[in-house]
């Protein structure tokens, strides 16, 4: 009934968005390579990757949540809590790093499950629930350590995960690629992704289509909790210590990366590869500015600018759809009032 080239809609827009973002990353890279003599070295590239794996993990699993129209503000706090609990299990409970890691993953899943239960069971908005658990998780971490306890002196075999190379790349990279790949498959090649989008576009519509809306939302949050625990372990291995303030503010970096990557904050539209590009754009910018001898504050400003630009393009298809639906209201009268 109207122009199919406009109607073809969000997929094409997303494609354009991701191409654009790839261009942004490339331009960043070329620019910093020309001003910072050591920027383009292999060592620096690995440094960028090492520093972005934890936020990258949070961002990758934030993507399905935002696709469902939700948000997870508790991710950074949960990372902090899991780091503390990991340290506690290893040092005070005497578990091996592997066993402690497995238990930490379980704790992360339970914490994600708490978010899920509050959101689906009590039908509270995700923003409110995760704002609450944002304080709760951080507060628990501080209570356990009384704000001063720090876990250090991890064995070298554990620190390997965060500081050494494996298969020629930083050791955490294969793990990150595994998680990112799995989530990509979940979102883009399996029915789960389809239902995440359906819930994000129209939660009631999805319910009327027989989709188990609550179970799908729960899956997204439990996945996010588990992977936040993994990020906590990698974080601890990278820095060699676990403190209660670990991962402070990471949730905002993760959300920024997701939105920058073209995922609509209103839900429904978005991709995991877009998120990866968003992480890359932020990571390269932050690292490059150091090499270009610019103050750190500039990085924050430029990230903000990028985000606003990204938001205006990601809101566009939704706005168009909205305008269209208003124009198309042909119902003669709202018969059922």
């Amino acid at each position: 009934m109207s122009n199919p080239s406009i109607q073809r809609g969000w997929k094409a827009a997303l494609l354009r968005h991701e191409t654009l973002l790839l261009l942004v990353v490339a331009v960043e890279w070329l620019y910093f390579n020309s001003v910072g003599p050591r920027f383009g070295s292999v060592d620096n590239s690995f440094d960028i990757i090492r520093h972005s794996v934890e936020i990258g993990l949070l961002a990758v699993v934030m993507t399905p949540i935002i696709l469902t129209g939700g948000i997870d503000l508790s991710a950074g706090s949960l990372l902090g809590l899991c780091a503390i609990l990991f340290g506690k299990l290893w040092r005070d409970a005497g578990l091996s790093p592997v066993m402690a890691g497995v238990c930490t993953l379980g704790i992360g899943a339970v914490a994600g499950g708490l978010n899920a239960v509050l959101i689906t069971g009590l039908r509270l908005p995700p923003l409110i629930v995760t704002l609450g658990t944002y304080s709760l998780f951080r507060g628990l971490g501080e209570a356990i350590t009384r704000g001063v306890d720090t876990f250090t002196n991890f064995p070298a075999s554990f620190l390997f995960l965060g500081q050494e190379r494996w298969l020629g790349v930083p050791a955490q990279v294969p793990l990150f690629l595994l998680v990112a790949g799995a989530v990509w498959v979940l979102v883009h090649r399996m029915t789960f992704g389809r239902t995440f989008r359906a819930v994000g576009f129209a939660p009631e519509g999805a319910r009327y289509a027989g989709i188990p809306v609550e179970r799908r939302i729960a899956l997204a949050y439990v996945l996010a909790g588990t992977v936040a625990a993994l990020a906590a372990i990698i974080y601890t291995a990278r820095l060699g210590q676990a403190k209660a303030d670990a991962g402070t503010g990471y949730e905002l970096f993760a959300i920024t990366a997701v939105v920058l990557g073209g995922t609509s904050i209103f839900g429904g539209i978005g991709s995991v590869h877009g998120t990866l590009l968003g992480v890359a754009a932020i990571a390269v910018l932050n690292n490059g500015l150091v090499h270009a001898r610019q103050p750190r504050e500039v990085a924050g400003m430029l990230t903000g600018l990028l985000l606003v630009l990204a938001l205006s393009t990601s809101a566009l298809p939704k706005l168009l759809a909205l305008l269209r639906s208003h124009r198309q209201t042909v119902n003669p009268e709202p018969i059922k009032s």
Partner: protein
Amino acid sequence: MSAANAPLLQLSSVAKSFGAVRALRGVSFDLRAGEVHALLGENGAGKSTLIKVITGAHQPDGGTLAMDGGLLEKLSPAAARKLGIACIYQQPALFPDLAVAENIALRLESGGALRKVDWAARRLQAVGLLERIGADISPDAEVRSLSMPEQQLVEIACAIGSGARIVIMDEPTASLTRKEVALLFAVVRDLRSRGVGVVYISHRLEEIFELADRVTVLRDGQSVGTCPVSGMTEAGLIKLMVGREVAQLYPPAEGVAGQVVLALKQLGCAAGGVKNVSLEIRAGEIVGLAGLVGAGRTELARVLFGITPADSGEISLNGRSITVASPQDAVGQGIAYVPEDRRRHGVILEMHIAQNMSMAIHSRIFPAAWLRDGAEARLAQEFIRNLGIKAYGPQAPGGSLSGGNQQKVSLARWLATRPKVLILDEPTQGVDVGAKSEIHKIIRRLAMEGLAVLMISSDLPEVLGMSDRIAVMRGGTITALLPGKSEAHAVMAAALGQNP
């Protein structure tokens, strides 16, 4: 006509179309000062559109509006309010978190945002207005804490306070108890004695006889008659409301109904307002579910589909008692529901029609939860062909289709589940004439293939033309079971709760 003896409000051949749908096709209506003029008509006859024209929410495409003989042009809602036209909707539009006095003040006061607020005067004004309509409501009460009828009374207080000369009431008694109705009627009579013209809309015929001076009947967007209530009978009014030929366009029923597929025994759901529903639907049978808006038809469908699960009674499918606690249960059991609000519930507008069609059968066409684009596209192609869906392909977003084609996509999604029972809720609402008859043919074909069909419709000719049997709902339960070849006025009478 001089202003002195001109009617308070005069509408002459007012027309209004929405796209291809002609909601009003030349309505003439007049309201005198100091009268209660009832407006009557089936669902979809054009009452709401007419109100919106009078309140300035819609601009008519043709015809004229005049007040006291003076032509009203380009009426806006603000201008209408200034002229003294007030409308009290079924759902009061008050601010729930503000006090009654504040709500009244918001409607009546004007002036800049920086003016000084005289709280005492506000309160006094509210007390005075509430007293005048005999409402026992504290001006300090939060509107959230008031019952629906109390909120309506606040609305009326606003209307009186603003010196309204025309008050429109849209089904004001729909949610009131008998005692509250009596209070409301006293207020309406008081308004009348003060020379206010009241347009009164109600489905309850007895109220119209009790309260109104004159009545105008709308049908298919036209006024079919205005007459004094005193000379009318209920039967006469019903005849005016439905008095059209049932077109012979409906596909004929063939074959005989088979085994009972769906049986409901004393089914109820307190939360959904459904009680004591007993009904049987056979294979190959279309049961039309008629009734007025609010009679509980959609609510019954929501119970059968597990959105608001039943809390009493029994559902049997093919003689076996089943539990439907969620839509997933319903789908698993073979109950499909094509919802009424297709833009919100029926189709996800942003998603492709292929994705929409496969949505209820993920586990069947996507083994191991793995997307298979080829299988999905084939499914879509098949339905696009079978149902004659006009779209540029399986990849077309749902929102790009016309209403009729969206409805077919919604239908396809549920046919893909290979259901035993198909519930259709207003299957042709807002659908153009051509698509409507196509959808009717599809429904009949499905029934002939052995499906048990429950068709909710407010379109009386559709119910009469399509149904093998007609169940009429009123007040959350089925009050009458009529044969498919019933007379229109018999169905309408049952829906209105009159004895034919």
